[in-house]
């Protein structure tokens, strides 16, 4: 299912980060650093996106030396199309340049109705 029109600001940030390099598998800490989201916010978003088939997830195939295998994420083809459309509707958050966001969840005006 494509993402719904009313996405939270945090979900947009995660989608924007994933859409920046759509073919590349990303891991959670990488996304957390890029978006500034805490693990308790980031992972529920990833879970919902995976439930909607917007994001696909898998474990690293090989066991790397010195650290556990990572859980990896990237947009599905339908997720990429839906993300592009959804992010085009409203301005994409300036992921690379924006200041660290406040920890308190924000909601878009469209979500409050």
């Amino acid at each position, binding site marked *: 299912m494509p993402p719904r029109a009313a996405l939270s600001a945090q979900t947009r940030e995660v989608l924007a980060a994933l859409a920046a390099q759509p073919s590349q598998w990303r891991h*959670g*800490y990488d996304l957390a650093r890029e978006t500034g989201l805490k*693990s*308790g916010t*980031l992972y529920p978003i990833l*879970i919902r996106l995976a439930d909607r088939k917007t994001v696909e*997830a898998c474990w690293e195939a090989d066991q790397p030396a010195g*650290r*556990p295998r990572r*859980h990896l994420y990237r947009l599905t083809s339908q997720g990429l199309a839906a993300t592009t459309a959804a992010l085009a509707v409203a301005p994409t958050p300036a992921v690379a340049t924006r200041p660290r966001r406040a920890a308190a969840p924000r909601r878009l005006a469209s979500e409050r109705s």
Partner: protein
Amino acid sequence: MERMTRLLAGLLGTTARVLPPARRQWAEAVQAEAGQVPAGWRQLHWLAGGLWLVAREANMARKIVYWLGLGVVAAAAAWAIWLSWRTVPTADPEGVTDRVRVLVGASALLVLPWAGRRSGLFGPVGSGITPRLVRVAGCAAVCGLGVSIVHLDRNAGAGGVLGSGTISWAREIAGLALLGAVAAIPPVIRALKPQADAGAVWGPAGVVALAAFVVLPMQVLTILYVAGILTATSRRSPLPSAALAIGTITGLATGLIIYGVLAIPSDIALTGGIVLIIFLILAAIPFLLATPAGIAAAWLLSGIEDPQELRARRVRQGLLAGATAGAVGGLLITVSAMGLGIMMIIGPLAGIAGGALGGAVAAAHPRKSLPGGSWAAGMFVSSR
């Protein structure tokens, strides 16, 4: 700090096991990433976020409240058993019979969820706050029934009001054997005749249950109520949460109205005719309240194209909501005034009749679908 981090990591690994397998990997992902997060507060925050994720995905707050509620029910059951044991048989000839009644009720609360969970009839409890709340409150009311029985017989003096006054072991054993037969008949018939239809399976069990009711009315009623509460609140319940809420709220209103009617002071002598009028009023109240409850519950149904099927399902949903309203009202009034134990029978029967009428009225007016919610006893109930 390092010890705290290790503690949180261990806690995350342990609590992740409460998640269903499909969700567990997400908690494991947080744990796997924790090693990459710089040590110190940031790593601690990362792991704390993982614990929050587990709590959120496991619906822990809801589960904790539910299990606390069940703990209260268990304490109430233990209290009822203790009360029945504290009663001295010489002071209360019904004391031993009360113990059996309370023990049968407590056993039903213990055994039926376990037995039903295996076959899927009674559990697991439905998702959402309504089934959990109704299940806990209903089981607590059954415990209250045990306490009421003991109190009533203690105050009634010799002879009691619920039976012959003294224990009859032959009757108790015969009744319990019949109850055992009721539980055994359906699986035995299914094992002997796998092709048997529902009527062939449940018909004989129903006849034996009727015989058990004649022998031990209070015990059978208690078991039936426990079974009804568990069925109505289970995940496979035929009653959606909103219809269950409508039935329950209407039932609470029914119980309160009956209680209010009975509390009106009167000097009228209770002759045969007056008693009959009182019982007619007691039956009319759940019937009259179950009718709008049935309409409200039936109107919740929508999205069924076939008009015949929509009509049949509306009548059925109205009937079930009415039965719930009557049963809740009957149980409530019996707990508060044990001498009106007959309401545990009259209530559901009148509720079924009123609910079916309401369902039929709703079926005749198909344009009134309210998929978002419905009105019940002056309250709006959301179906979401």
